[in-house]
């Protein structure tokens, strides 16, 4: 049990505990405000929209806020020393080797995707996708106040991405991943000699099509199977378009904007799908080619 304490107690893990607490509190708080606004028929923010002087009203809040943060920071810095381990030694790899905590979601993704997706394509898409948000969300409602009712899809999608795929994977990577990046419960001792037999199969092998032939060359049938699955997954974009293209929302979105939203959305949901396939069915790759695997 003392492993839990050890993990939480580690100086660099304290911010993650803080992050978790803050995220839970703020999520609860913002949904409380949003649902309250939705229910009562008027906006709390609109009630507070009369103009007041910045001096002293805002400056006071800023000053007290700054004071509060500085007090916490100074106490924190007096009480807990930043970690300093042994001198850098390129010949001695620690196990586990973990990236800085804010990248642990990406490191966790490495279990489910090859590095070129988990480490390069996905982070780039996260950045591009975030930047695209104001231009693809054409819902004019919900500008400048908390609401859920008026923008359910966008709020749910963002919360799923931020809370589930970003924050909880960071927490998972910090507290549930031990030596060899194996899964350990936080209260479990880390066994550095743990070996887990790799019984992973590719998706095609799940259906009896071997990825490689006896001479280790790629099996064309498996290649075709994989291409069909991947292309089929993304062709959901087109299918949904043809089904809904005459609806009002699609007309407002337009073909181009809809495609960007659908692509980003499906790429995001590919992660939990791949996680389920991997954890529940030991499936490694969906598509294997000589150049890259998905």
């Amino acid at each position: 049990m003392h492993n839990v304490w050890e993990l939480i107690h580690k100086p660099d893990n304290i911010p993650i505990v803080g992050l978790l607490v803050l995220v839970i509190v703020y999520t609860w708080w913002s949904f409380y405000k949003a649902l309250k606004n939705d229910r009562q028929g008027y906006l709390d923010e609109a009630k507070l929209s009369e103009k007041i002087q910045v001096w002293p009203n805002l400056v006071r809040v800023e000053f007290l806020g700054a004071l509060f943060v500085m007090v916490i920071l100074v106490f924190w810095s007096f009480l807990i020393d930043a970690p300093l381990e042994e001198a850098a030694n390129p010949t001695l790899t620690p196990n586990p080797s973990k990236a800085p905590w804010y990248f642990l979601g990406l490191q966790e993704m490495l279990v489910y995707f090859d590095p070129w997706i988990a480490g390069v394509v996905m982070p780039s898409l996260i950045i591009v996708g975030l930047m695209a948000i104001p231009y693809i969300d054409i819902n004019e409602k919900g500008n400048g106040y908390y609401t859920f009712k008026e923008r359910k899809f966008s709020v749910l999608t963002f919360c799923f991405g931020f809370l589930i795929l970003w924050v909880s994977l960071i927490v998972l990577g910090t507290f549930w991943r031990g030596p060899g990046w194996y899964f350990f419960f936080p209260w479990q001792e880390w066994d550095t000699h743990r070996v887990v037999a790799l019984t992973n199969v590719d998706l095609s092998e799940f259906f009896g099509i071997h990825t490689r032939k006896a001479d280790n060359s790629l099996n064309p049938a498996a290649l075709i199977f994989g291409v069909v699955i991947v292309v089929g997954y993304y062709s959901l974009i087109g299918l949904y378009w043809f089904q809904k293209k005459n609806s009002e929302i699609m007309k407002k979105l337009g073909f181009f904007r809809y495609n960007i939203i659908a692509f980003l959305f499906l790429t995001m949901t590919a992660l939990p799908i791949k996680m389920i396939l991997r954890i529940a069915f030991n499936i490694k790759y969906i598509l294997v080619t000589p150049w890259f695997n998905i």
Partner: protein
Amino acid sequence: MLKIREKLQQTEVWKSIFRHNYQDTNRNRALQIVDNVFLHLHPVRIPRHATNIGFTWGMGGITFLLFLVLTITGVILMFYYRPAAEYAYEDMKYLMNDVAFGPLIRNMHRWAAHAMVITVMLHMFRVFLTGSYKPPRQFNWVVGVVLLVLTLLLSFTGYLLPWDQLAIWAVTVGTNMARATPLLGHQGPFGPELGMRIDNDVRFVLLGGTQVGPPTLLRFYVGHCIFLPLIATVFMAVHFWRIRKDGGISGPTSNGKE
């Protein structure tokens, strides 16, 4: 005493520094903001909900405060630190054991850095949940995403500088991703086909070598202390300026139409 103060306030020197007196009038309250180089970032008047912590969470402001703390503590740390592999770790030991208030300055720098990553994320979360990226503030959201990335890069480059086991291995894990970059990494899709080797791909450029070593330390140091803060400052200036230009803090009644 009062006489002296009155006399003092009549002098040319006093008047040249303080442009208005301190009687509590609306005019003086406005001048207090407009006549002050630090405060004139603010408008003179704002909607009441902008001072409501329950609405704003104060995360943007706290992020800026932490950036200032990091700048100040970072400059102090630079007096004690040499970015060369043979000195860096020794300097850290010296700082933590022999420099007066050395540990405090370093702890503040590290904890403020972690905290800043958290507050940036929460700021983004709040801005999303209040729909504040919607017109006319679309572009400022994009600037904000750039600042988020810069914050992560600043934190990541700083992570290497202590030059201990934690530092080099965390950075090794992080930068190993670069070799899988499509087209530009020697293990990425179509990388080898384009002539990428371990000693000429994008990771090599990043590290200044085939593994995290002394040239990496210098690169990350310059990036951390000069290049990234400068870029971040420029983007922050744009970010703050755009808040004003886009009609101040978002709200149900102030969507830039005023």
